[in-house]
């Protein structure tokens, strides 16, 4: 047995999945990423099937293949499945699969979280789709505008399936966003400074942060609407002081960034693939980094361009119109950087390149119609017409699906170790490309000729007949194209010729793993010297599997990877990664029970399920640090750098901070809703006297302040190496926090809040529940820390975890006082509206 083989055996023993059904306990990013992508692919086919049904119905005028009700379910589900169950998850899956390999890490840094995210996605997707089989699918549009989606106008469970199921799925998006951010910042291989990061990582970093800020408004909106439907709290009901337009603001506050969340990773694939097939480094790396960051921010400033016809003052519309046009600048920068790369290099024709040319063609059209739509007067004409349908498919299919399939062909040898067939692949491309343009190019005209969206039928005299017929024919051509691609991919697993390592002569590290990759990616972790490691250090292809670089010890049986400095890529610590675990699957299953019990409105079961889920999550947090299943003191310590649980600036702290950013975004969305309703809602009503006792709130807040101060003090001492009396300090913080929590709970449930009559009181209730939720988690987690000190899992040699918890205390404190100021004091200062 050669030395590399021997090394492989030893690593594989530690890193492989459990056999048989045990594969369900896999947490490894390669397995999880593959599952995300396969599941996403299946959902894509389902969404595509729905699209074919829609096109069948619209092929001829006055058809009744589908009833109006069924047609509503079809287009609602088509949008929902494509957006939430296909586009976002499959890109997350690609990022989960690729990112650690590109940055030279062995796994993502919160592997159990990846697995939890996957199961939440899978179960949520199944729940949402089951409604389709039961014939009670959501039918108020994928945008769920109230009042149409509320209990009065959508009495069935359809809207509940959407609100609960999609929120469940979003857990996976947010957790992937957090995990990818921290992984990119903290687990790059040595020498990979920020400026040497593969460009794809920049795209994913910005996308992940956009998810962190973009999804919470929708999660909040879904919670509010579900509370309105299930508990009668009137957030969007004008009569009680709510406003249906608030839903639109919150929805599009998520919905527009979402478009770029889908586009950016795909554009990242273009920027990765193009240099490989032109044999020249990407032109304008710095320009592109700048353009990506710019896109990320500006995309949050143009949500109201979906709302130009709701009657917003023209000046406000002009702000959003300007922002929408400005986003053309970073997009144009990228397009011209790509063109310049082609210009300066020599194009190698291949399947991935074909898809990228298709992308350029289609996406440019979509971008140009996008600029047109940003013109307010034009928008008033074509908004909600088929022109918009055409535009959005040009942007999303052109901007996401084409690069994705290009990426699929590019990385296919990496997944399988085999090459796809050129001939079938070309057929697939041309059929899809021609079919796509036939379907959607004409739709621009259909829209200009006045056909609104979401019509289940149309009359003969309207002048839309031949356009719709051609669009429908085109859609069937796309379907044959997709079928070709699927056949090609399936066949290649059997008949494709062997790929070997780095078949395209690419520059990025993921091709140094060998194809298909081993579970641990790299037997040794290299130090890289440039932005194109495999072009400038080709010897890595041999030296990595031969174990010539860092972190080759494996006798201790721990999964490990390097933790490095976020900016310089200098080695800081050795990260311990959890191994196979059933906890993610069990927790997700319990959460699925919670979701279903809320759907069928059996709240006792829901409460039990929530409690059980919490128990599993805390159990999960228990097996960390110095726990015997992790890395107890006395284990063999690594040579290169200290184990992460022995340090105080680990990935857990970073993960906590990023999580709190998402949390803060949710809180800001709530605050926005409160201020918005206060100033804009037509019938906003405020009770003469606040139903909440201010002195009691102040008392509760003082207790919380004391507990936070006390906890922070204990952590400061611990970081200074002093752990005497640590357990009792933590118990004091827990006790004081518990007193604060008890008082807060009493205020919430004893106050005379008329939550079903006044929007005002309903919002206050949600705010109080938000505070209670955070205080509870903080207090329980602190109690657990005290116990862990007793068991010896936390001490001055293991100071990692209390440091992680500190931002949580500070956040809880901050939102408490911010709430007192803006929900209780500001109204007093402002006076009755």
């Amino acid at each position, binding site marked *: 047995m050669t030395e590399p083989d021997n090394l492989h055996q030893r690593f594989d023993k530690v890193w492989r999945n459990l056999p048989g059904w045990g594969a369900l306990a896999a947490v490894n990013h390669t397995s999880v990423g593959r599952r995300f992508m396969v599941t996403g692919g299946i959902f894509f086919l389902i969404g595509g099937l729905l699209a074919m049904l829609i096109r069948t119905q619209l092929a001829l005028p006055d058809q009744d293949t589908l009833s109006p009700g069924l047609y509503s379910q079809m287009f609602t589900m088509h949008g929902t499945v494509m957006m939430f169950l296909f586009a976002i998850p499959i890109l997350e899956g690609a990022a989960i699969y690729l990112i650690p390999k590109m940055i030279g890490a062995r796994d993502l840094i919160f592997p159990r979280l990846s697995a939890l995210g996957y199961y939440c996605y899978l179960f949520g997707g199944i729940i949402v789709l089951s409604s389709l089989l039961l014939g009670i699918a959501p039918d108020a549009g994928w945008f769920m505008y109230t009042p149409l989606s509320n209990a009065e106008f959508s009495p069935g469970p359809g809207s509940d399936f959407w609100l609960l199921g999609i929120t469940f799925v979003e857990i996976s998006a947010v957790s992937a966003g957090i995990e990818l951010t921290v992984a990119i910042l903290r687990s790059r291989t040595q020498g990979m400074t920020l400026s040497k990061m593969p460009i794809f990582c920049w795209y994913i970093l910005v996308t992940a942060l956009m998810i962190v800020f973009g999804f919470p408004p929708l999660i909040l909106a879904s919670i509010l609407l579900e509370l309105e439907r299930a508990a009668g709290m009137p957030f969007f009901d004008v009569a009680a002081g709510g406003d249906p337009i608030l839903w639109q603001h919150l929805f599009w506050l998520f919905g527009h960034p979402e478009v770029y969340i889908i586009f950016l990773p795909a554009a990242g694939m273009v920027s990765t693939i193009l240099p490989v097939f032109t044999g020249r480094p990407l032109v304008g790396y710095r320009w592109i980094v700048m353009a990506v960051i710019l896109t990320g921010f500006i995309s949050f400033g143009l949500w109201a361009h979906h709302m130009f016809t709701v009657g917003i003052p023209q000046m406000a519309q002009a702000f959003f119109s300007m922002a929408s046009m400005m986003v053309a600048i970073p997009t144009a920068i990228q397009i011209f950087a790509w063109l310049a790369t082609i210009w300066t290099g020599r194009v190698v024709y291949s399947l991935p390149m074909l898809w990228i040319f298709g992308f350029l063609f289609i996406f440019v059209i979509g971008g140009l119609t996008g600029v047109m739509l940003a013109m307010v007067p034009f928008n*008033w004409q074509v908004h909600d017409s088929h022109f918009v349908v055409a535009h959005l498919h040009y942007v999303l299919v052109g901007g996401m699906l084409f690069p994705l399939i290009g990426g699929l062909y590019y990385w296919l040898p990496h997944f399988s170790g085999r090459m796809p067939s050129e001939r079938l692949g070309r057929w697939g491309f041309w059929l899809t490309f021609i079919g796509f343009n036939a379907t959607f190019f004409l739709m621009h005209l259909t829209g200009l000729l006045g056909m609104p969206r979401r019509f289940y039928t149309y009359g003969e005299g309207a002048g839309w007949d031949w356009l719709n017929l051609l669009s429908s024919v085109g859609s069937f051509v796309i379907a044959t194209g997709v079928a070709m691609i699927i056949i090609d991919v399936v066949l290649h697993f059997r008949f494709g010729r062997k790929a070997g390592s780095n078949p395209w002569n690419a520059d990025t590290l993921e091709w140094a793993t060998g194809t298909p990759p081993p579970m641990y990616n790299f037997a040794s972790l290299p130090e890289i010297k440039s932005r194109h490691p495999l072009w400038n250090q080709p010897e890595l292809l041999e030296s990595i599997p031969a174990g010539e670089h860092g972190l080759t010890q494996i006798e201790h049986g721990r999964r490990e990877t390097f933790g490095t400095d976020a900016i310089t890529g200098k080695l800081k610590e050795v990260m311990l990664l959890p191994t196979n675990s059933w906890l993610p699957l069990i927790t997700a299953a319990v959460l699925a029970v919670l979701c279903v019990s809320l759907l069928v409105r059996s709240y006792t079961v829901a409460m039990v399920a929530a409690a059980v889920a919490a128990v599993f999550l805390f159990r999960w947090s228990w097996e960390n640090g110095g726990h015997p299943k992790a890395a107890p003191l006395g284990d063999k310590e690594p040579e290169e750098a200290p184990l992460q649980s022995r340090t105080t600036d680990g990935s857990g702290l970073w993960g906590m901070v990023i999580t709190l950013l998402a949390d803060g975004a949710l809180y800001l969305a709530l605050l926005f809703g409160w201020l918005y309703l206060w100033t804009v809602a037509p019938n906003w009503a405020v009770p003469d006297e606040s139903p909440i006792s201010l002195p009691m709130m102040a008392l509760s807040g003082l207790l919380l302040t004391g507990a936070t101060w006390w906890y922070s003090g204990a952590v400061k001492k611990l970081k200074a190496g002093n752990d005497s009396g640590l357990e009792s300090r933590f118990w004091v913080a827990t006790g004081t926090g518990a007193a604060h929590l008890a008082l807060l709970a009493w205020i919430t449930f004893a106050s005379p809040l008329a939550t079903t009559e006044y929007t005002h009181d309903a919002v206050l209730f949600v705010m109080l529940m938000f505070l209670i939720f955070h205080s509870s988690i903080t207090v329980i987690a602190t109690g657990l820390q005290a116990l862990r000190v007793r068991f010896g899992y936390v001490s001055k040699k293991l100071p990692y975890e209390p440091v992680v918890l500190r931002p949580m205390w500070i956040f809880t404190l901050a939102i408490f006082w911010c709430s007192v100021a803006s929900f209780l004091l500001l109204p007093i200062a402002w006076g009755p509206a």
Partner: protein
Amino acid sequence: MATMKKTLAAATVAASLMLLSGCSGPYSSLDPAGPAAGSVAALTWAMLIGALTIFIGLILLCWYAVRRNNEELSDAEAQRIQNRWILAGGIALPVVTITALLTFGIPIGHSLLPLPLQQGEGMRIDIKARQWFWEVSYPDTDIQAINEIHIPVDTPVDFHISSADVIHSFWSPRLGGKIDAIPGRTNVLRLEANQVGEYSGQCAEFCGGGHAVMGFTIIALSAEDFEAWLQQEGAETND
């Protein structure tokens, strides 16, 4: 040669006729019958032609970039090319385009607003949207109608639009843009017809099962005919 030219000319004429007839239709925003729709249609054509020009330019550029015979470039040369391309195409091109669009777009948008009239008098019609029909009423009269709106020609009409249930959107493409009908709010849309005739309209915001059949008709009458209609309707309602 001459016959070929003639055939070509005939083909061009036929094609443009087909294109133009393709643009007409009862709901066509490209077949305007009032000032609001007219200015937007002009804007539409201008933007379509501009977009097409940019698109063709980009495709040709890309095609040439792929095809051209290129020599090995040094890094410094590549850097220079890159900066030139990005500054010209990535920054200058969109900035110029956006500026041009705004120069035309902002005045057009402004002219569509229901601002107080400089001269003459407008008229007001109230519309209440319901699942799935439109209630029409004329303030200061008792006249009520369903899905049928009579207006005088060449007079700016302010439609005060609201909803009794879910969100709808009021859209008559040959006269102008759309505006949403929202419960609890009243939005104002100003439309004007230049010719006597019937103009179709429909609901543009998805509002449930009957969304596709929530149409209405705007009937533009000459000033005298409209007066006569008012008298007659008013008399009928009072009976």
